[in-house]
């Protein structure tokens, strides 16, 4: 080895130090990052780290009133599940209910009160004090001036004590303008039940124990009334009773989720389902299946609707009608129900009456497996009369545009989105001098108001609820906050109570409570002392604790039918059973069927990303709107999936991509409701179309409800193409062993 000279030595030292430096650096880079261990300053009472706490409360995503259990960890809500002791959903929950967490933690929630700077200007954040003082002063002045009636409160379908609070507040303010508006509220169903059975509530449809469900459009597994409860019942009907497997028949022009699950799907001509029901009734009577004393009246009422006469109008063969009628009788107890698109035409009430008459003729009333009348829940006042029909809303519109409304308070409802353009509601709304919105999200209506009071979501609020439709016995559920409000928001009850104190006068006397919790407790104390005078609880506190713990009062009882038969003899002679449509068949060859989306309901769910990402059950489409077309129609018009289609009604037009849907009548096109928001947060905004926009303002005269299935349209290609975003590839089994045991498939 030769000697290393100085120069080389320095080189080696240099290399060594470079290596050392790299080594130190490498060690530093690969070191785990320092994490902090942050203790709590003062631990909450029932806090234990890493252990989940479950709170029982009530779902606020739709009007079914399911009970939910929310799993929380370290003060954050993690998961919503059904409350197992709740009689409506019995531990189960639909997709919408579970997506409630998206509403709670939605990035687009309004985080503080907002005030509009100038008409048409932008919003500025203000403090709660300022917001409530401004509003309180305004309302107080109106009250003092005796113009209390110029205040209108338009709410969503709240129930229970919040409803009572609203009513009291408005009453004390001197206003009788307290309305509730929900697009999907079945006005016609209530009306028909009132006519037929003289009841104010919905009856209990005992799908669980029936043998045969003859559903006219009622998508009871998807959107109709109380889908979770009916799904439970459906499961039981199919496989829960040993060998007795119930049969489901669905009569509707476009296959809904329920239609997909039914044994038979029968596409009658839209609007003629009532006729079909009459024909079935005719068969029941002519085949001598009904032996009541009033048989002659019935015979004369339905006499002219023989299957042969109706067959042509309904597009259903005579033998088919006879078969359905015989099946319906043979499988007793059977159930005939009507809803959704069938109950939203111009003949909605007539249709429902005819369909309900089948239950009467088959003797299915107040029977296990038939229609059971709910006991009237007498806990808090019944509310359905507050639900505004379309005509009522038009009344409000007129009042607004003629300056009879000085202050409009909108609570959690979105009429600008849910009313057709032809209603001119939006234009009227802008004429109201002072508009206030109580909402968690910047929806289309909130975007137009002068003062925005951000609400807690239902997971941060106190309240109670009475499920509607009921479950055959009296029950009520509690709504309690499961997390502390994550933003500077307040619950509607707290806001109203604070306002009451702000306004002063008689209001604090009538509403002495300062927060919703106290108000609720006081109300439940009444229930306790009035209703539950039994020895199960020693004190109200114990009862209240139990109610909060289980989330529901009246749990796990069996259904006790109200045996009193209230059925009135119905004069089916007088009903107008033939449907009317806006636009004549020649110019507008297609019937437009907007349908309530299972994922977004009436549009409320569109801002929840989990629902946007939930493939539509029938089409698997996500994140968009689409127009459903029969393959034959599409072929005739040369339309392919994804072609952008222009849909033109008398009232306007919209453009959306086509989806070739096998199970829809060739003379019908269907568009889901729910998308097409112009506001409402990043997940909903500018996505798809809102078919409500192009609906004609025609109503069902009997119920005054908007006939939203009675608009005719024409369609044309625009030449553009949008790739529909869907998850399903090929939706045929191609003879593969997917639904059968091996060897059996072709």
């Amino acid at each position, binding site marked *: 080895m030769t000697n290393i000279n100085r120069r080389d030595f320095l080189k080696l030292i240099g290399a060594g130090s470079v290596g050392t430096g790299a080594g130190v650096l490498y060690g530093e880079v690969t070191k785990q990052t320092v994490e902090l261990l942050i203790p709590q300053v003062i631990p909450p009472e029932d806090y234990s780290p890493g252990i989940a706490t479950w709170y029982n409360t009530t779902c606020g995503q739709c009007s079914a009133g399911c009970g939910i259990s929310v799993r929380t960890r370290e003060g954050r809500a993690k998961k919503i599940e059904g409350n197992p002791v709740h009689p409506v959903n019995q531990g189960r929950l639909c997709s919408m209910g579970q997506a409630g967490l998206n509403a709670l933690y939605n990035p687009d929630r309004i985080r503080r009160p907002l005030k509009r700077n100038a008409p048409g200007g932008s919003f500025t954040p203000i403090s709660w004090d300022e917001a409530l003082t401004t509003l309180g002063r305004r309302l107080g002045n109106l009250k003092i001036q005796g113009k209390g009636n110029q205040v209108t409160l338009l709410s969503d379908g709240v129930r229970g004590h919040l409803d009572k609070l609203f009513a009291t507040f408005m009453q004390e303010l001197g206003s009788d303008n307290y309305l509730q508006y929900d697009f999907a509220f079945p006005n016609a169903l209530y009306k028909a039940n009132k006519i037929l059975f003289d009841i104010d509530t919905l009856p209990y449809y005992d799908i669980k124990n029936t043998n045969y469900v003859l559903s006219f459009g009622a998508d009871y597994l998807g959107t109709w009334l109380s889908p979770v409860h009916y799904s439970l019942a459906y499961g039981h009907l199919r496989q829960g009773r040993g060998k007795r497997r119930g049969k489901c028949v669905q009569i509707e022009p476009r296959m809904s989720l329920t239609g997909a699950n039914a044994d038979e799907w029968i596409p009658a001509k839209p609007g003629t389902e009532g006729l079909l029901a009459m024909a079935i009734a005719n068969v029941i009577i002519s085949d001598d299946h009904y032996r009541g004393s009033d048989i002659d009246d019935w015979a004369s009422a339905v006499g002219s609707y023989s299957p042969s006469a109706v067959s042509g109008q309904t597009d259903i063969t005579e033998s088919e009608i006879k078969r359905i009628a015989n099946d319906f009788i043979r499988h007793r107890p059977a159930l005939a129900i009507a809803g959704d698109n069938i109950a939203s035409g111009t003949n909605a009430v007539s249709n429902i009456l005819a369909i309900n008459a089948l239950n009467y003729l088959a003797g299915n009333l107040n029977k296990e497996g038939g229609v059971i009348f709910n006991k009237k829940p007498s806990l808090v006042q019944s509310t359905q009369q507050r639900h505004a029909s379309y005509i009522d809303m038009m009344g409000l519109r007129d009042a607004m545009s003629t300056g009879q409304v000085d202050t409009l308070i909108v609570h959690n409802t979105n009429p600008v989105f849910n009313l057709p353009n032809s209603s001119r509601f939006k234009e009227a709304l802008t004429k109201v001098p002072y508009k206030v919105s109580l909402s968690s999200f910047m929806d289309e209506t909130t975007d137009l108001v002068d003062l925005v009071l951000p609400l807690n979501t239902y997971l941060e609020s106190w309240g109670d609820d009475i499920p509607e439709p009921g479950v055959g016995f009296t029950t009520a559920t509690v709504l309690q906050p499961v997390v502390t409000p994550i933003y500077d928001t307040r619950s509607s009850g707290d806001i109203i109570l604070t306002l009451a104190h702000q306004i002063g006068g008689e209001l604090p006397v009538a509403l002495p409570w300062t927060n919703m919790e106290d108000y609720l407790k006081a109300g439940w104390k009444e229930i306790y002392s009035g209703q539950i005078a039994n020895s199960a609880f020693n004190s109200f506190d114990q009862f209240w604790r139990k109610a909060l713990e289980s989330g529901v009062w009246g749990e796990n009882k069996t259904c006790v039918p109200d045996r009193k038969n209230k059925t009135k003899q119905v004069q089916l002679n007088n009903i107008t059973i033939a449907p009317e449509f806006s636009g004549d068949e020649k110019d507008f060859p297609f019937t437009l069927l907007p349908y309530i989306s299972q994922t977004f309901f009436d549009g409320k769910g569109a801002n929840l990303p989990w629902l946007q990402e939930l493939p539509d059950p029938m089409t698997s489409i996500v994140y968009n709107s689409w127009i459903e077309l029969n393959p034959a129609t599409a072929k005739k018009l040369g339309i392919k999936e994804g072609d952008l289609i222009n849909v033109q009604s008398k009232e306007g037009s919209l453009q959306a991509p086509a989806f070739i849907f096998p199970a829809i009548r060739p003379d019908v096109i269907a568009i889901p409701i729910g998308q097409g928001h112009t506001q409402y947060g990043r997940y909903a905004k500018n996505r798809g179309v809102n078919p409500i926009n192009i609906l004609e303002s025609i109503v069902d005269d009997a119920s005054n409800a908007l006939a939203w299935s009675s608009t005719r349209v024409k369609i044309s290609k625009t030449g553009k193409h949008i790739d529909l975003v869907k998850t*399903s*590839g090929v*939706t045929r089994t*191609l003879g*593969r062993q997917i639904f059968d045991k091996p060897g059996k498939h072709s």
Partner: protein
Amino acid sequence: MTDTNYQEPGYADVNRDILQTLLVTGPKYWITFGISASVALICFFGPWAYQLYVGVGAAGMNRSAMWGTYLSNFIFWIGLSHSGTLLSAVLHITHSGWRKAIYRSAEAMTLFSLMTAACFVMVHVGRLWFVHWTAPIPNPMELWPNFRSPLMFDVMAVTTYLTASSIFIYMGSVPDYAAVRDASTGLRRRLYTIFSFGWRGTAKEWHTLSWAYMFFAVFVIPLAVSVHSIVSWDFALSIVPGLHQTIFAPYFVCGAIYSGTAGIVSVMFLLRKYMQLERYIREIHLDNLGKLLIVLSLIWTYINIVEVFTGWYSGTSFEYEFLKFRLFGFYAPLYWEMILFCAVVPLFMLHKKIRTSWKWMFIISILINIGMFTERFIIVATSLPRKFLPDAFGFYFPSFVEIMISIGSFAIFTTLFLIFIKWTPCVSIYEVKETLKPLRRDA
């Protein structure tokens, strides 16, 4: 011999002619090198860095086709690698003299296409930073690779193949390194002294080298067959229709040799043209390779027909759907292009004039490799989106990143090859001498 003007070079000419390819570097070389290196950098490493940053989502793969062009590129390059080693080894042990002028560049192709293929493994995986877990290295987690996995077969086979073919090509070059050493001075001389192990050409050295070389050849042949069989098993050991085929191993091996041989023709054409090696790479080589290509093309066509026939005749929905998609679906033009380039075009080589024309053979060889590249793409892109559940049927189209990386891989190969020809004589000096007139008085 068609070439009547051919003048056989002397021993010294061989040394001079071949060493000049290595020792004399003109601006043309540097321009080519510069272009190919920058294309490699921009098209391969640039997009790859982007992909590493955002995730494999930068590629066009999706739920229905979890594998894409990266895998088809991998197979293509592995396939191309079968040219050299296999051809060289088979011809070596069968004592085919014509191999001697071309085998060095063929082996170089093997080595560098293998390296390119290995790059694609790196590009393909989702978490490159953990890819060392596939190597059986002792680790504190006590976790070892899963040797039941066909991918581990791959890891072992490709590693072995890379090692074996590097050794194979290196050992075959030792006497040539000595020639470079003798013809150079300074740093290059010192380096080549090391490379050549101090080779003198003694009888002992020649004897040991030839024995060792024979063993290498014997090892490499079953290895090469196993490597592409194993690559095919990455697919065939699944149960996916279109991939789960008994015939896949021979199909892949045959296809590999086919594309590799075509690759040699292309490389030979370019070397001959740009490295002034007309005296060494001659029509006889072209003629022989042409004949080989025809045979391989026929075998390949046969296997393709068998694949379609069995799929169709079996009558199962699984086979039928994917075949329908392959033959008549979106990628049908590619399929028929493949058939045209790989089954029809080679038939022109039956004509001797075409078979011995450099221009025609170059075009045909390029077409064959385009066809073979398509074949690999089609295997991935038409089978995976048509698996078992029709609802999950999908579609695959390569993304910009994937296309760029695919283009870049050719540049990587070219760059490596360009480095190689300046490092090792691209025609074996001593073996070419063996084909010449011996240095005897009586010759």
